[in-house]
């Protein structure tokens, strides 16, 4: 099945990774500084703060929101967010009537330019397997109890389209600035397993 079979003794992953890195770096096939740049990019620069800016702008600028729902990729590029795993972005809006939640059952496809790399729960087999079968139960187990008359739509990524949830703006936030609103928006709400609270 896999060619990368271990010997009878399992190699600790830190050692295994170091071994592969050495083999590639010593032949000049991989530059460790490029590796450092990739790691730093997703540790420091590209993360849920990007998505939160998109959400806050949509909440405060109706024309932007319309463009976002009509052409997610184009509207998001206006804010400068693009890159790997963001080739085509579809934004779906949560409301009192419909709650959207995103999964990738086959691997863990995720809109990197907006949210960074996926969190552990998104990659968990219980989430990947069950949210396409019993989403209301899964969301409740994760702390989101939806009203029984709220319809649920689950989005499972198969192609290179990436789905992004525009959460509901919480009540009582009419006076907040765009930056203050962005600070309320969580990663989990932009995947659809939580709601934004003020």
């Amino acid at each position: 099945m896999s060619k990368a079979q271990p010997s009878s003794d399992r190699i600790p992953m830190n050692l295994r990774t170091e071994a592969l890195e050495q083999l590639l770096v010593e032949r000049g096939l991989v530059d460790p500084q490029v590796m450092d740049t990739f790691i730093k990019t997703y540790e420091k620069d590209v993360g849920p703060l990007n998505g939160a800016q998109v959400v806050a702008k949509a909440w405060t600028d109706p024309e932007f929101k319309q463009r976002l729902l009509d052409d997610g990729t184009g509207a998001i590029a206006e804010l400068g967010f693009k890159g790997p795993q963001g080739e085509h972005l579809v934004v779906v809006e949560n409301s009192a009537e419909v709650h959207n939640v995103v999964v990738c059952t086959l691997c863990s496809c995720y809109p990197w330019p907006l949210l960074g790399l996926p969190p552990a729960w998104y990659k968990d087999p219980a989430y990947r397997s069950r949210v396409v079968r019993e989403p209301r139960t899964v969301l409740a187990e994760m702390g989101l109890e939806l009203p029984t008359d709220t319809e649920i739509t689950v989005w499972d990524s198969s192609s290179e389209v990436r789905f992004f949830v525009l959460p509901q703006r919480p009540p009582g936030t009419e006076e907040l600035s765009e930056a203050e609103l962005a600070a309320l928006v969580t990663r989990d709400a932009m995947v659809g397993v939580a709601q934004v609270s003020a």
Partner: protein
Amino acid sequence: MIEIQPASGVADMGGDSGWGRAPIIDPDEVVFPEKWEGRAFALALLSMRVSGSNLDAFRHAMNRLDREHYFDDGYYGRWLYGAENLLLDSAIIAPGAVEARAANIAGGHVDEPPVPESNKPDYAPTAGGSIRQIDAPRKFSVGQRVRAKTMNAPGHTRLQKYTQGHVGTVAIVEPAQILPDTHAHFIAENAQWVYTVSFDSRELYQENTENFTLNTDLYEDYLEAAS
């Protein structure tokens, strides 16, 4: 001769039961909890280039892993094993090279296999990314009833088993994209339209189930017209 290796099936878990309670969200989670995970992430991205391969081949290289390799070292564990598969496929590294080097780093004195003659796939993408402009007309339109085919893919596919054989409605026509099933094996890009299809949960699961809508973006080759 292109060697097509089958997926193990472990990755295609949508709709499966037996995985227990939903995960607990850790709001303070860091991107790479362990240092090696960041190194494995970067190595995997670079291994696609070094091996002359592509993203679809990388996904399939992970889907070929057995249960133990897929799950036991977590997400970046499977990235590392997947990267090793790509590098072994293209003969950038020799079988046993990683294990031997790891033993030597740990203070052992093991002979390492010689560097093999590389054998990268005879292939080049026609453009960057996965989206392509195509002239072919769309086979389906929004509102049309379509059935996800029952397919027994010999190698890579993105058609989940839980959708196969079921009828839904086209909700969105997405941009045309290259077909993972052939691109992963360097056979052809096969660019084609992609459709987000809406399925009723009661169509997907015949037994008593929650009432919800399942939307998934499927390639034209995965679909056929339904009445």
